[in-house]
């Protein structure tokens, strides 16, 4: 039987029509591809618009179309749109092919003749292919109502609470002993200057007490199996050496523990903790952790002070790591960011010159609960600085390190300037390339700083040195910079330097991305499905991202994304079941020789072998549709729906219908 095919060429405004002669293309398709079954070929300004879709639906009905080819943007953008349109006109959605003449043609070529020729070839490919498309029905699978949230920072906390409050179970996994993330380390938050702990702690407590939230701190995800709706996630719970069911968090153990350890995580190396510890007083959960790398008992085999003094006998030195597997329908990744290591810029003297601080160190200094009790003093622990220099863009906006803008440093630096000014009355210099204060209330905060008399020097700091050239520089840190507004190199002596190090992706983001089957950008931030229209979804169904894991952002933005991701997940859960792309492999028993080659080719163990019949069979629920077995089957017994040999071979013919001829022959 011969098909009745409709071809629809989209102008996409001028996006396509500007380069490809769409009228010519659709006319050509109507004439030259008639023998393939093209009965109608149209071009239209915006095919994806409701009018464009109606146009297609009308033709399907009136022209009795059996196949549809739309030549427009990338299938990753609008394949669903047009398939649904066909569905709306009672044509099986999988009988519709979307071929890309925008991302792959008009946007990447300038030669109009060549681009037009290519468009024709691409459409021919689509037409040749669509002939062999089969009616398919998506597999429906139930969605597990539980959600996995990875990362207990503010974004993860927000997401967990939203979902849990909606009445669905959440597993919140956190690598550290307590949730809270970076925000818990901060003192004040810009631009309102409300106390970070004051606004964060209540949320942390809610998480701790929420009946729908299973909190798994001091734990890490090991393995992720399955697919959207039905993930099986294996989580490793590192040994706490504390029987949490018995522990009351009274704090006697860390009071009595004789072993002091420099806290490089929460205190950013500025303060100490014990070998048995909770990172900070408001930690959630309240149970401590015994750090078996530093604990005297694990080093020398004696001590056990904590055990002796524990009133509830909750210490258990024999605890082992345990692995649990949980079933979830969706996953939200909120694993946050790492701080750029300022040591990578030696000319700034961090780690060499005592009074050069990282921003995180300074947050701890400012924090009333921090190592200096909130007194802003130099490393000697007593002297208050008289002049302070704050260096912006450390490791950011610099192709030698991170080319991107870290987004938060300007405001953070302004916040620091204010705190220094307020608490010490010291003179504060801000060294900036550009001041970026785009959000609500931010510019006003900048104005406030200007009024407070903070000094602003426009110029990226060249170096920080303690080598004095003139007497007034003796014993000071000298910031050498061009004051670009007056075009002079200046050497400004200060007592304290704060480096506003930028954000960068977690050191292990690549592995994590791989674990969850999503991809990273060149800077190792996780890639969202669409930068504007789908910022919290990923290319992998059922896996969402929130907070700094997607790119540098401040607290309000992280919270917004946490909530957004939760909303997306709730939407999915409410659907109860999800339609899986019916792109699957199927084995024709008659043709199967039982060689079992495919069995080992499949990475998902979706192919089982029937000893009795001596044939292999694909489990459609497990099959992910990669098609490797199809290509690998020596008997040609396996066919891949949606990407069958017939479809692809014919598409090749179609693509080769025209030989390319750039320039010369004008299209008109």
């Amino acid at each position, binding site marked *: 039987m011969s098909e009745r095919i409709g071809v629809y060429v989209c102008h996409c405004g001028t996006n396509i029509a500007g380069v490809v002669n769409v009228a010519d293309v659709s006319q050509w398709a109507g004439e030259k591809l008639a023998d393939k079954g093209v009965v109608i070929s149209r071009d239209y300004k915006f095919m994806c618009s409701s009018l464009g879709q109606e146009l297609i639906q009308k033709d399907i009905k009136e022209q009795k179309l059996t196949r549809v080819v739309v030549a427009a943007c990338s299938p990753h953008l609008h394949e669903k749109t047009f398939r649904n349109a066909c569905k709306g006109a009672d044509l099986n959605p999988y009988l519709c092919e979307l071929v890309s003449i925008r991302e792959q043609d008009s946007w990447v070529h300038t030669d109009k003749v060549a681009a037009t020729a290519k468009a024709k070839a691409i459409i021919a490919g689509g037409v040749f292919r669509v002939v062999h498309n089969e009616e398919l029905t998506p597999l429906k699978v139930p969605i597990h109502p539980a959600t996995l949230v990875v990362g207990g920072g503010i974004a993860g906390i927000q997401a967990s609470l939203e979902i849990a409050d909606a009445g669905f179970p959440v597993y919140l996994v956190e690598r550290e002993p307590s949730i809270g993330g970076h925000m818990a380390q901060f003192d004040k938050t810009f631009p309102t200057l409300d106390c970070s702990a004051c606004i964060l702690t209540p949320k942390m407590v809610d998480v701790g007490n929420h009946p729908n939230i299973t909190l798994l701190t001091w734990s890490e995800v090991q393995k992720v199996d399955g697919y959207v709706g039905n993930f099986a996630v294996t989580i490793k719970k590192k040994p706490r050496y504390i029987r949490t069911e018995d522990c009351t968090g009274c704090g006697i153990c860390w009071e009595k523990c004789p072993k002091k350890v420099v806290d490089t995580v929460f205190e950013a190396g500025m303060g100490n903790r014990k070998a048995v510890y909770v990172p900070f007083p408001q930690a959630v959960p309240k149970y401590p952790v015994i750090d078996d790398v530093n604990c005297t008992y694990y080093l020398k085999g004696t001590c056990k002070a904590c055990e002796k003094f524990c009133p509830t006998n909750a210490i258990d030195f024999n605890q082992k790591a345990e692995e649990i597997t949980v079933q979830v329908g969706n996953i939200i990744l909120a694993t946050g960011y790492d701080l750029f290591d300022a040591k990578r810029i*030696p000319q700034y003297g961090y780690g060499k010159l005592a009074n050069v601080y990282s921003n995180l160190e300074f947050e701890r200094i400012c924090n009333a609960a921090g190592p200096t009790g909130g007194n802003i003093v130099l490393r000697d622990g007593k002297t208050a600085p008289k002049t302070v220099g704050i260096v912006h863009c450390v490791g950011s906006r610099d192709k030698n390190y991170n080319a991107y803008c870290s987004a938060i440093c300007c405001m953070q630096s302004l916040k620091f300037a204010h705190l220094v000014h307020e608490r010490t009355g010291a003179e504060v210099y801000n060294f900036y390339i550009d001041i970026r204060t785009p959000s609500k209330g931010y510019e006003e905060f900048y104005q406030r700083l200007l009024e407070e008399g903070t000094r602003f020097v426009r110029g990226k700091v060249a170096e920080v040195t*303690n*080598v004095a050239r003139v007497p007034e520089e003796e014993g000071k840190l000298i910031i050498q910079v061009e004051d670009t507004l007056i075009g002079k190199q200046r050497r400004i002596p200060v007592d304290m330097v704060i480096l506003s190090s930028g954000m960068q992706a977690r050191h292990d983001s690549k592995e994590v991305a791989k674990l969850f089957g999503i991809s990273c950008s060149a800077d190792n931030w996780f890639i969202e499905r669409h930068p504007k229209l789908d910022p919290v979804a990923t290319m992998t169904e059922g896996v969402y991202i929130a907070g700094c894991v997607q790119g540098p952002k401040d607290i309000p933005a992280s919270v917004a994304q946490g909530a957004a991701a939760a909303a997306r997940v709730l939407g999915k859960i409410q659907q109860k079941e999800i339609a899986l792309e019916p792109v699957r492999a199927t084995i024709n028993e008659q043709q199967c020789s039982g060689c079992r080659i495919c069995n080992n080719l499949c990475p998902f163990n979706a192919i089982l072998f029937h000893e009795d019949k001596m044939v292999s069979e694909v489990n459609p629920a497990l099959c992910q549709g990669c098609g490797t077995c199809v290509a690998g089957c020596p008997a040609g017994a396996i066919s891949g729906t949606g990407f069958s040999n017939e479809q692809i071979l014919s598409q090749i013919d179609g693509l080769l219908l025209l030989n390319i001829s750039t320039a010369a022959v004008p299209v008109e």
Partner: protein
Amino acid sequence: MKQYAYYPGCSLESLGKSYHVSAMEVARALGVELKEIEDWNCCGATAYFPVDELLAYTLTARNLAKAEKTGLDFVAPCSACYKNAYFTNSYLQKDPDLAEHINYALEADNLHVSGTSKVRHLIEVFINDVGLEEIKNKVTNPLKDLRVAPYYGCQILRPRKDHEDVENPQYFEGLLSTIGADPIDYASKTRCCGGSLIITNRKAALDMVRILLQNAVNQKADVIATTCPMCNVNLEVYQNQVNREFGTQYSIPVMYFTQLMGLAFGVVPGHLGIGKEQISGASLFAFAQNTKQEKTL
């Protein structure tokens, strides 16, 4: 016996003679043969580029071509020569167009360059190919407690970005400790000495020299060690003028790292060109004495 195509460069024939002789002495001691490239020409230091870039690359390429013939690594003791050779080499590797231009010119001298030979600096050859272990074994006269300011200068480090930390390198310090000296930590070790300006912009150059001397002297250095004849001359010969210009009294000896190595190996000072400096290093005499004894024993 490790062999290298050695490119002394013009300065080592005149102002930098003592660098040349000491380099040879040390190389011999370490079983390194520096085979001088035959009939090499001036690499042009920094003075060609203002006139004609292509000419600048071609002149350097001529020497590279001669080195390629020998199949040995191209080794330069002068940082300026090193930088010119290094970049000419990598540019003509990267840019066939440039290579073509250059080779067209080289044809006239029956030469061809393809950028295959590796370009090295002398100090890096000693440190990486010979190795600190080997060097340590040769030390008979450790320069104990001699406070040396290792001066890297510019072009041995920059504009390369592909090597160990440009801003705070450590290998020179490593070498100095190996020969028993006490390398001082001072911020200006990679700061420019203004060598290329000493003729064309005396004021600026002297100011840059001053800042360097000041830093080294404040850190109580007995001697400044250099890896480049330009820097060496600039830092040593112009100290009087600096003093005149700024009313200072700097008088700190400036030595080539090869001279210090030689001393540590117990080579007689005379063979290292020591004694020809404008500013004699009292602090070095002690060690010079030892070497003489070594010999007579």
